[in-house]
């Protein structure tokens, strides 16, 4: 096992290119997961039993199956029915949907934690359904759940290498192609690990700060 620093500097620009795509996918995926999670949480509270049940089962199904297979499904099956997505878009949709089912649980806990009195007060003030949600419930429910949401976004970041399986040129894929070109695995693979460790350690610091700032809810 010999470690070659010159080779490390040589492949660094390619890997940085990959890191950018990885971070982009994480950010877009997080935004989508935040939206999908809220939609699922609201649908499960719906008055309509059929909607609530079927969304609940759908979420269970997504959560019980591997992200990799879901990515394959989006990437290979959807074109057959005429939906052709670029790899990165397919990847972001996969990440967003998968983690949306996790963030839905966070939203559910956050909404349940809003005291009953707030609902009654909204009713007493004669607010309609939409205004109750946007002005009373969500502004109180969302800040305490920010740390828990961030936790899932960090988990999502660590799953982005799966996107390499559907040909997105993110960090892992760049590292693999470099490794295959030069037939040297030690440096690229170790660097990928180092990148992940550094970024996730930084995000743990950020998470601690968020927990300090917004408090913490139990799931």
């Amino acid at each position, binding site marked *: *096992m010999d470690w070659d620093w010159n080779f490390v500097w040589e492949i660094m620009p390619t890997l940085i290119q990959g890191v950018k795509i990885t971070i982009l996918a994480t950010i877009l995926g997080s935004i989508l997961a935040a939206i999908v999670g809220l939609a699922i949480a609201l649908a499960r509270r719906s008055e309509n039993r059929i909607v609530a049940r079927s969304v609940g089962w759908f979420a269970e*199904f997504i959560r*019980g*199956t*591997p*992200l*990799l*297979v*879901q990515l*394959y*499904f989006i990437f*290979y*099956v959807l074109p*057959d029915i005429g939906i052709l997505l670029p790899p990165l878009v397919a990847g972001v949709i996969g990440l967003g949907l998968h983690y949306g089912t996790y963030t839905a649980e966070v939203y559910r806990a956050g909404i349940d934690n809003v005291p009953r009195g707030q609902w009654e007060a909204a009713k007493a003030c004669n607010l309609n359904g939409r205004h109750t949600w946007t002005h009373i419930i969500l502004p109180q429910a969302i800040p305490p759940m920010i740390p828990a949401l961030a936790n899932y976004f960090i988990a999502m970041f*660590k*799953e*982005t*290498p*799966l996107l390499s*399986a559907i040909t997105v040129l993110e960090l*892992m894929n760049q590292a*693999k192609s470099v*490794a295959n070109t030069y037939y040297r*695995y*030690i440096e690229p*693979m*170790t660097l*990928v*690990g180092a990148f*992940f*460790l550094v970024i*996730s*350690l930084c995000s*743990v610091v950020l998470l601690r700060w968020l927990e300090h700032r917004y408090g913490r809810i139990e799931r």
Partner: protein
Amino acid sequence: MTQWSGYLGLILQGALVTIELTLMGSVLALIMAFLAGMGRVSRFFILRAIATAYIEFFRGTSIFVQLFWAYFVLPFAGLSLTPLQAGVLALGLNVGAYAAEVVRGAILSVGREQYEACTALNLARWQGMRHVILPQALLVMLPTFGNNAIELLKATSVVSLISLADLTFQAQVVRSQTGSTLMPFLSVLIIYFALALIISWGVRTLERRMARGLDGVRV
């Protein structure tokens, strides 16, 4: 029709590999979880430091990176692993790190008075742990262990990328041989979901069974 049953056989073969991986990975994860989780609540600084380093490292880097590292980099250090060995090693160590935090949390959740009772009965530290603390902590760990086992089941899909013929891999084989996409991926998704349901059912049953003797004890 005969052709279709041939492909179904292929997928079932993959399912066996997935089950095998999940079982072996879970055993390794369980061992690591108890070693590292009890290491973190140890009296000795060095044990705490080793356990913390292990947990932070394996939770900080992605399972995917660990798997590739085990499969592609370790051979250069003179340790060649088969895909199955690399898969079990990476899955077990990764999920073990997450489960270690569960073990630690469960041990800390046992009430102070239980520790005081151990002292009052003049039990040695290890005896108290073995006969008083762990039996109660185990019940707290079980539901989260169930979730971890499902995460492990889902994570097994990534071993298909280091050419181990699991469910996901066989779905890809069927896709490339038949050109049909919906059938392999949908059936594989359903099998994964069924396995996840079996795990959660098994853990619930185990939980009921174990709670039986502890009725009056739990607070």
